[in-house]
């Protein structure tokens, strides 16, 4: 029962990986959003 740290580490690794990927997706979405706003402004000109 003293191998809990390893069990935790494995699940933490998966969580961290997923979190980082989702964060990357979110960032990219935000960048796209900003670029669309920018283009809209330019076209409105």
């Amino acid at each position, binding site marked *: 029962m003293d191998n809990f740290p*390893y*069990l935790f580490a*494995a699940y933490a*690794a*998966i969580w961290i990986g997923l979190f980082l990927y989702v964060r990357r997706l979110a960032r*990219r979405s935000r960048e*796209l959003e900003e*670029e*669309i706003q920018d*283009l809209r402004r330019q076209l409105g000109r």
Partner: protein
Amino acid sequence: MRRLEPLLAPAVFVSMLAALWLIFMVVPTEKEMGIVQRIFYFHVASAWLAYMGFFTVAGASAVYLWKGSAAADRAALAGAEIGVLFCTFVVITGPIWARPIWGVWWTWDPRLTMTLILWAIYAGYLMLRAFGGDDEGVARYAAVLGIVGVLDIPVIRVSVRLLHGIHPNVLNQPKGSGLVDPSMRLALYVASIAMLLLAGWLAMVRMRQERLASEVAALRRQVEGRA
């Protein structure tokens, strides 16, 4: 397929919760390995998903080379990103599992070695796409790599078996051979389904994002052309 889309997120949520419940509340503690064995379920599920991702890259790449379909190219990219993500899980959880059980972080176990090589191949694919420059040809080059990578799989499998020679390696136990309890098998299947749905969800989001990105890029080129 489109009608099922709104169901995807709840399905991911439910299946993942179900998997976790099975793994931590239902499955008995394995006799020899103890509680660390509970890593096994997501470790194996991730491996299956990684291979699925890589085969997707190869298939989508072939379609892209043959038909020039931009959607296929996006599918290849998503497949590679998600494949490498899940492959990373395998390569990290593997040693974490191995250490308390076998006493070493790493062994050149055929399966782990093969997964590591594939990780490197498709990480290279992502590097090619990221750093290959903006040349339109990069998608084509990546497609070639995507196909070659999968072609390598059978040769890698055979070659890594050469590594251990005649000596039966005590570390070389086939993983998951101790699936004694039926609830363990169920947990593995549910975990795999959960990972599959998760991967599908991520892929959908990523591909949609990529399509939007190319539309935005085309729009930007138009605007700049006008100026």
